[in-house]
């Protein structure tokens, strides 16, 4: 086959496929088994969660917003767990199901999708190891993220993942979890893991305690922490040693530190800042080296701060805003917002099953509340009676633009060429849009360069221009039966919703009266949709 005829064939195939998607028919109806895959054991805790929030609203005399429709919730799930939006193909499949089954079914699709593990792994990695390149050779961030993604995809219990991070030994290539340790190797000094940075990371990333505040001086802001608390925890990491054989534990290593106002350095024995009894219990039942002990203590079922922080993280991923702010500082003794203790206990009792935790939150009423209400107010939003608006992160925006240009889902099954082109485009876009760095949750307005990039940038231009092979806008223009399906398909592809009556009338009129070609009007419509507030914000 010549190159030309191959392109013609590809064109024919893609166009035919688009036609299928556009014309509402679909070959793959979800099976009943898939639909009912939600475990019934989750129902009671979801009910309790709903009850806690109902009480929370009533104590504040708040009338919560109604539940959002299933497409809105599906969009939230895709953005929060995969960093992209549902394709038109996904929407068609969803709509073939009864309304009440759609969200649970879609949630399972997302959880099983490799894109979800990849996305979550990258987001978690930002909290675990940051975004830096780290020490040359002994730190492999890419390898670390892939490992984390594999763990999440296999739904490994979260406590096991964290145990590996804190206490694994071996080479950064063969035992990727040790990159948690090697990222702190001090290249200026002795090329050894930095116990202080590890202590700071451990408390922030896994316990939601900002113990590093007392690294240099006792807490001077009404807190109870003292410098010793930090350095005693750091002492757990002093045995970690880096060599050509990777990370191992050197017996009898000592941690010494000169405290503020002290005259001499002193030997610091390992101790935990809270839950000392639990540590004793762990020491007796599961003896091990210092890092192993710490790992068992951190992830112990009775160490509630560990579960609470993960609940806060998953909540933040789904809602775009953590339940407790800032995300890595959860009070040890409360007061806790509604839901937190319930979810943390359920998470610990069910073997730190991350997917279960996601399901419980995602299937609750509080997640499915609408972000619009007649009586919408700041207070309602603050108290979770209204789904909070949050600005999308750069990778969510680029993921959404790329997906919105295709009628079919772009995932692991997509043609390698399509994936490669899209990955390149996304990286370039994220660089320009401004990466949000570590795990940041802010509600700042967007910036001028972001708007310029969306209005005039290459990605939006490339993905909306008249291009029958690659772009949804062109295919919709050519293949839609009439102007109404045309406008509807454009809205569903970009905003995951149908146009309002006013919007439909307005854009149908543009199609009917414009002296431009139909493809051009659709290109303009896509530009408008992608440049709307609605597209750039989670809602």
């Amino acid at each position, binding site marked *: 086959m010549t190159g030309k005829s191959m392109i013609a064939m590809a064109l024919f195939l893609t166009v035919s496929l688009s036609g299928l998607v556009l014309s509402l028919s679909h070959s793959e109806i979800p099976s009943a088994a898939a639909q009912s895959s939600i475990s019934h054991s989750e129902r009671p805790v979801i009910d309790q969660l709903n009850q806690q929030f109902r009480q929370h609203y009533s104590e504040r005399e708040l009338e919560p917003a109604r539940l959002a429709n299933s497409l809105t919730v599906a969009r939230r799930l895709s953005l929060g767990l995969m960093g992209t939006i549902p394709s038109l193909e996904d929407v068609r499949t969803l709509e073939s199901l009864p309304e009440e089954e759609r969200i649970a079914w879609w949630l399972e699709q997302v959880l099983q999708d490799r894109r979800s593990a990849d996305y979550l792994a990258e987001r978690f990695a930002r909290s675990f190891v940051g975004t830096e390149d*780290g020490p040359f050779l002994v730190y492999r961030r890419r390898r670390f993220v892939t490992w984390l993604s594999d763990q999440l995809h296999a739904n490994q219990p979260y406590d096991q993942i964290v145990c590996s991070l804190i206490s694994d030994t071996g080479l950064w290539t063969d035992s990727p979890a040790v990159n948690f340790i090697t990222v702190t190797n001090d290249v200026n000094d002795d090329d050894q893991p930095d116990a202080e940075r590890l202590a700071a990371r451990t408390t922030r990333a896994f316990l939601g305690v900002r113990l590093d505040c007392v690294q240099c001086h006792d807490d001077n802001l009404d807190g109870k922490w003292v410098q010793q608390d930090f350095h005693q925890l750091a002492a757990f990491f002093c045995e970690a040693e880096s060599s050509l054989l990777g990370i191992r534990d050197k017996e009898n290593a000592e941690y010494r530190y000169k405290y503020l106002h002290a005259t001499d350095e002193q030997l610091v024995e390992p101790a935990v800042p809270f839950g000392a009894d639990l540590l004793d219990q762990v020491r007796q039942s599961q003896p091990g080296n210092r890092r192993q002990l710490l790992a068992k203590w951190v992830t112990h079922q009775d160490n509630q701060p560990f579960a609470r922080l993960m609940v806060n993280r998953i909540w933040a991923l789904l809602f775009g805003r953590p339940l407790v702010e800032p995300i890595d500082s959860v009070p040890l003794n409360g007061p806790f917002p509604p839901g937190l203790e319930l979810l943390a206990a359920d998470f610990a009792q069910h073997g730190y099953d991350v997917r279960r935790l996601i399901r419980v939150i995602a299937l609750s009423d509080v997640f499915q509340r609408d972000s619009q209400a007649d009586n919408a107010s*700041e207070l309602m939003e603050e108290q979770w009676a209204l789904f909070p608006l949050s600005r999308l992160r750069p990778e969510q925006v680029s993921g959404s633009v790329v997906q919105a240009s295709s009628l079919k889902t772009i995932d692991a099954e997509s043609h390698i060429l399509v994936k490669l082109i899209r990955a390149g485009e996304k990286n370039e876009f994220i660089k320009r849009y401004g990466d949000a760095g570590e795990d940041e949750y802010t509600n700042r307005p967007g910036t*001028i360069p972001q708007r310029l990039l969306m*209005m005039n940038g290459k990605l939006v231009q490339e993905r909306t221009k008249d291009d029958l092979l690659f772009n949804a806008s062109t295919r919709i223009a050519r293949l839609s039966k009439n102007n109404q399906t045309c406008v509807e398909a454009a809205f569903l592809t970009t905003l995951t919703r149908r146009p*309002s009556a*006013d919007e439909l009338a307005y854009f149908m009129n543009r199609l009917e009266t414009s002296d431009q070609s139909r493809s051009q009007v659709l290109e303009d*419509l896509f530009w408008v949709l992608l440049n709307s507030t609605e597209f750039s914000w989670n809602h």
Partner: protein
Amino acid sequence: MKTEKYTCGQLDHVHRRTLLKGLGLAGISWLTPLAQALAQQDEHSKQQRPKSVILLWMDGGPSQLETFDPQPNHAIAAGTEAISTAAKGVLLAQGMGQLAEEMQDVALVRSVVSKEGDHERAMYNVRTGYRPDPTLVHPSLGAILCHQLPVGATEIPRHISILPGGSPSRGGYLGDEFDAFKTYDPQHGLPDMKARVDDDRQQQRTKDLDILEHTFASNRLAKLEETRTLHMHTIRNAQRMMTSEQLAAFDLSQVPEREKTPFGDTEFGRGCLAAARLTEVGVRCVEVTLSGWDSHVNNHGIHDGLKKVLDPAFAALIRYLRDRDQLRNTLVLCGGEFGRTPHMNPAGGRDHWPHGFSVALAGGNVVGGQAMGGSHADGRKVKFDEGIPIENIHATILDSLGVQANLELQTPIGRPIKLSEGKIITGLMQT
């Protein structure tokens, strides 16, 4: 066991929720307007202060020994020779011949120290004057200057990064609007500045947004656009910028060849010329990046190549500004995230070295023709307390532009944050 600090605990205590909430709602910077007023007044009263900063960012960390701090005839030179300069007694490494002729306007600080040896962390440290802190993103020097100094008649971004490397300069807690605006080789014009369709179509597109914005705003917060998203406001500002005549500063196609040639036919050279033109229309801080200095292998070869780009561009920039009487108004700073090890590794490379590296300063109020501080010819580390910490360079530059370096900005909950924790270096600037 180390006893050095990792994070200064102070900032950790800032109540982030309140802080960010304040930011989100205000949409514009929330920090003391008094500072701005004072700075404005200062600018009017002292015409002698520089108004802009051009940062020549040597991405990857250049070797001090092959650039601003040669040690000829010592083992650590590893064969690199030195040349004399227009400033008596101040040597530069071979290959810096054009800059050598301008040394009367250049000061070198040769004992800069930091505690960061990882690229990303060190870039953060050198750009912001603070070490990375998980609770807070500090603003870079350019962001602080834009925040503290008046806007004037500038319609285009006042903080610009030409050829940005991996870690862009950010506005941090001052707000994303102070992030550096990223641009690339000036030969290709400003990115994303032209609409992709003709005026009529573009106007129609903008008009068509109204109906979508109307739908989105219904049944939401009463002042969604004003207090939260600022979406259309930002679009309008972006459109104003697209039509600004000041953009011409970036367009080198109209610049005569004789002005362009001295900068060298490189993207970095063109970036330097564009930077000079941008400061003339009121841009506060332009960062121009020259990448590739991370010479773990073949250090000398890499440096020889990059000096051929840096030397003409840096020297031409000083001459260009001087010829237009703009050198006093423009402070030029050249440096990277750290220096490189005095001892060569087996691959003929030099590794990361934050223990005594060099920064060059020119123009503005800089007392040129001098080299401050020294590194050790035997390759020893400059001890932290005998070197010049990077934050002192920050404090000195802020002070030089009339910004009170140790100014404490008040957050909404009354926590103080200093613009810089550094001390002003005496003798570096004319007072």
